[in-house]
């Protein structure tokens, strides 16, 4: 069984974001970077399948500057077998169709049985890449999965719908799955596994070798949303903050009356 897991490195969402001079993206200096949360579930699911059937080989793929290799090392330490780093200094500027095009171009002659992606990235949130990879490779895809069970060539999954309802589906492999939060419990890499990961293969490929499709959309402008008026911001010493909040609640709400 051959498994491909696609991961993205994203900034920590608690960062303070500033619009870059280009006016088209955010400044990437001074940000902390991590694995896209949704992708962690994809890595974990791949590793769980390998633990179940033993005979499996997991490739983790990421597109970006050299810096994304740090995040790839985490995936290798979680249990992926090898890494393909697609070197691209302007990956941030590529739209989902281009990203999917790069991944599909890499995957097309490798006969992957299972492909995992996150259901969306935390920064762009387009929720397109996994499904597009399936369409380009002409294999089925199921998005937003919260349950996954492999049994002999078939996969039983649950898709999450609104209000906590799930749709139960069965798919034959090869297929693509996009992972939703809560699919499993992503493991923390252990120290021995972090050491082992350092010896795993991590190949770098130039993006130009794999990008053969044009962008269908571009970012015209990035900006900070206007703050809504009306909210009060309280800052200061803890005990005093509590007194001020209680005073506001007494005045503005009936719950302390």
């Amino acid at each position, binding site marked *: 069984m051959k498994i491909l897991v696609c991961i993205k490195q994203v900034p920590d969402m608690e960062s303070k974001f500033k619009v870059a001079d280009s006016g088209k993206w955010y400044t990437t200096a001074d940000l902390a970077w991590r694995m896209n949360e949704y992708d962690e579930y994809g890595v974990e699911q791949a590793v769980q399948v390998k633990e179940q059937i033993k005979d499996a080989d997991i490739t983790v793929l990421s597109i970006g500057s050299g810096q994304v290799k740090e995040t790839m090392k985490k995936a290798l330490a979680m249990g992926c077998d090898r890494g393909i780093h697609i070197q691209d200094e302007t990956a941030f500027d590529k739209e989902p169709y281009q990203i999917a095009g790069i991944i599909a171009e890499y995957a097309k002659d490798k006969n992957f049985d299972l492909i995992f992606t996150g259901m969306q990235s935390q920064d762009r949130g387009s929720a397109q890449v996994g499904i597009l990879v399936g*369409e380009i490779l002409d294999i089925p895809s199921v*998005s937003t999965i919260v349950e996954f069970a492999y049994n002999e060539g078939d996969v039983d999954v*649950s898709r999450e719908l609104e*209000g906590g309802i799930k*749709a139960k*589906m069965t798919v034959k492999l090869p297929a693509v799955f996009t992972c939703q939060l809560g699919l499993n419990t992503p493991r923390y890499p252990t120290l021995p596994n972090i050491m082992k990961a350092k010896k795993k293969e991590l190949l770098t490929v130039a993006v130009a070798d794999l990008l053969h499709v044009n962008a269908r959309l571009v970012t015209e402008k990035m900006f900070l949303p206007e703050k809504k008026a009306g909210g009060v911001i309280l800052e200061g010493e803890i005990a005093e903050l509590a007194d001020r909040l209680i005073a506001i609640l007494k005045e503005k709400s009936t*719950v302390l009356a």
Partner: protein
Amino acid sequence: MKILLVAEYRDGKLLTNSNELIGFAETLGAESAMVLIGGEEVPTYAGKLYLADVTACGECNPDLHKQVILEVIDKEQPDMIAFCHSSYGWDLAPRVAFALKAAQVSEVVAVSDGKLVVPVCNAKLRRTIDCQSSRIVATLQAGAFGLKEPPSGTPDVIKVDVAGSGRTVFRGYEAALGGGVDLSKAAVIVSAGRGIGKADNVGLIVKLAKALGGEYGASRPVVDSEWVPHDRQVGTTGQTVAPKLYVACGISGAIQHLAGMKKSDFIVAINTDRDAPIGEEADVLVVADLLQFVPVLTEKIQAL
């Protein structure tokens, strides 16, 4: 400009989010037509409705649903195809966009000078998009495009036939785990977010909820980590609540959480990040470490 609106149907019911699609067409001042794979019930809509029979098509069958939508696109030749950014819409939109060689713009929140605007980084930033294809596929963020007045009219129904099977098998729905706490009845809800750090700290939130005579709730990561059961999750995949007072502790304010609580009468957020998007909805944002602030607040409220 002409837009094709893709309405939704699930488990025997027509969904009402098609009103947001109509609102979007109105915002753009565009002509529209609608497509629905559904049952007998049709949306209130004054226009052409292409209707395919869900019993022939099957629910959760993306291959066949795509086929129906593409057939209608072929007949109507729309410039834009609009879906809700829902589990149905975000699944189908890329399939349709790929077949049409169209640009897809996900989770549109606004239209500015005729261009589509989408959120970035948990709504901390926004982006205006320039499309370079002749056709555009868009998904709309829930709640972004309302109608000023309820829609009116009866659609002109045109039946669409379907044949085929699809590559995936749908085995039925599984209801949300029910029977637990009904948060919608609580006058006060204090919710724990990932900012509580670990399971042991849920107790702090429970104590504050008790002191305020309310219930405690949680954001999704807290539920996914099994620190709090699912029947207390607030948001699109949990419960929708509108208490007199909602206190969000260590919750960043992702759209899926906000959708479940923003109708609350009064919202207090406690967060170390002054720029957290929850601040946009909150009446009061207390910039503080909840681990220090919540116990002090609880004690003072108990002493009232």
